[in-house]
């Protein structure tokens, strides 16, 4: 077993051109970043410092121009687009600030759709596990309700259930409490932390809330981690 297989996430010498402002190229650069198996990490930092970019790179939703990203020992750059989708669905769970639930479908169906594309369980198991997970997050009476008729706290609970439905090795949470009031935010945060412990998955959580961040074993300030280079183009 190599060193990288013991890690949930390993990023090395990663560089990504984000775009340009006037004549300047904005480049995201990260020399090294690691998250261990079952480790829970809070990514903090001001807006625009690259937290979400890092999350998207780890998820394989963005591809670095150079460098290597390993998740569970798999180099994402070596996967074909379809294999990357399959790998992401099976290995990673996502929780977003704006929940990103599918409004056409009920809470139960949202979780089952996550399982359908995660491909971790046989289809016969979808319903049983989805119901169990929604019960675990306290939504046993809201299974057949559509997201638009759920409170924001309930929506995020559905998103949590969906994210862990495939028993992912890594849970990526992008400002999961950003849209919630302090009391609900605290509840949801605790829930994410607890389910990650129960499901034995690593957690990489982006938050602006330092009081919540400090409740996780490790905090990483993106400002100290990621370099942004503004390269001035010389035009003749």
């Amino acid at each position: 077993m190599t060193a990288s297989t013991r890690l949930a996430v390993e990023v090395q010498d990663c560089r990504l051109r984000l775009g340009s402002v006037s004549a300047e190229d904005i480049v995201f650069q990260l020399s090294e970043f690691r998250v261990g198996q079952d480790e829970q990490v809070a990514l903090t930092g001001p807006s625009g410092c690259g937290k979400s970019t890092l999350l998207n790179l780890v998820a394989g939703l963005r591809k670095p121009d150079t460098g290597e990203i390993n998740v569970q020992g798999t180099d994402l750059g070596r996967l074909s687009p379809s294999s990357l989708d399959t790998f992401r669905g099976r290995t990673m769970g996502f929780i977003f600030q704006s929940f990103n639930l599918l409004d056409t479908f009920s809470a139960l169906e949202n979780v089952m759709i996550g399982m359908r594309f995660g491909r971790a369980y046989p289809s016969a198991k979808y319903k049983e596990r989805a119901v169990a997970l929604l019960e675990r997050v306290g939504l046993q009476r809201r299974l057949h309700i559509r997201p638009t008729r759920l409170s924001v706290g309930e929506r995020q609970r559905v998103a949590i259930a969906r994210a862990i439905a495939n028993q992912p090795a890594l849970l990526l949470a992008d400002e999961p409490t950003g849209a919630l009031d302090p009391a609900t935010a605290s509840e949801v945060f605790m829930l994410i932390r607890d389910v990650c412990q129960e499901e034995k998955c690593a957690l990489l959580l982006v938050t602006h809330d330092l009081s919540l961040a400090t409740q996780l074993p490790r905090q990483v300030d993106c400002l100290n981690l990621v370099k942004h280079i503004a390269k001035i183009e010389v035009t003749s």
Partner: protein
Amino acid sequence: MSLWRMAWRYLWGRTFVTVLTVTGIVLGAALIVTVLTLQRESETGFMSEGGQYDLVVGAKGSPLQLVLSSIYHLDIPTGNIPYARFETLTKDARIASAVPLGLGDNYHGYRIVGTDTNLFSLADRRDPKKHLYNLAEGVLFQNDFEAVIGAQVARQTGLKIGDSFVGTHGLVITPGSSEHRAFPYKVVGVLSPSGSSSDNAIYITLPSVWRIHEKEVETHRQIAGVAPKAASTNDLEVTAVLLRLKTIGLRLLMSQEIQKQTESMAAIPVNEMLRLYQQVLQPMQRCLLAVAALVVIVSALSITATLYQAAERRRHDLAVLRALGAHPREIFTLVVLEALLVTLLGLAAGWLLGHGGLALANPYFRDSLGISLSPWTTDRIEIVSLGLVAIGGLLAGILPAVQAYRREPVTDLSST
């Protein structure tokens, strides 16, 4: 949850737009079904009835008019020919059967046709084991002023065996036409429904026609103060003679021979109906098919626009599905399935509407044109046409599906 079910749910998540799009397909498909069925049924109906006789002999005039008036009971006759012509034809060894027709009166708009019982012994050329005309009840006429009525006549007028009625002069209902009250008919037989023009006709003996009109001529003579004229067989006339030949190849030769006679002509029914079909009905049907094709094309464009818009509005959903592990090809399939479901739904409802509408309209066609449709029959051309519509609907989904396939999910997901 299968992609089919997801596509179905997405469709009904935008009910109003889906209903509108499906309605477009329904109308196009129903129009195609209706036009193709009417085309097939009118072609087989008209042609097969015309094909029952090899030649129709009548007074000189329009051959089509002669065929329509004597076989289909639609147009007015070209005139009369001497009964002697009919007798001559019956002696011709090349003729298998000759049936005389005498027209002139109607009952409630249904034509009263003087003929002989040979008409009822003709075999049906589509199924030679059967007769062309079959009695549902009663007997054939034996005596003058006994009548055998068509099924539609019985249904519409309420006439039944034993009932009496009087004819009105002329072939159609005309205000002020005189009724032949002195010569009532008695219904002795009712024909089985045949889906042909015989449903709308009343058959009597030829001498009945002669006697009524002989009396009428006599009355006119008396009014005019002209001396009575002794009846002579030379004065007897028939309107037309239906011929079946022993050899169908003789049709042209015999028609040319008869054409040389000064007082009569012969028309080949199949040729006349084919010409009518090709010159009048076929162009109309092609126009209707073109309209149907346009409706379908507009519907297909509407599917493209709707799905494109829906895919645009659902960029966020599709990005979420990608984040959850959906392959680009699954996203592509999902959008295409929506197009396919809209199209299949529209086709199924259109097929039902088209055929159901024809089934409902069947009594009208039977009553007004004497054509009985097989409204639920779906032939190969219809299946191919509807299949092309399905392919069109599928293709309409390709553009928005490719758009969704190519889109990078990260741009549509929320970011901090």
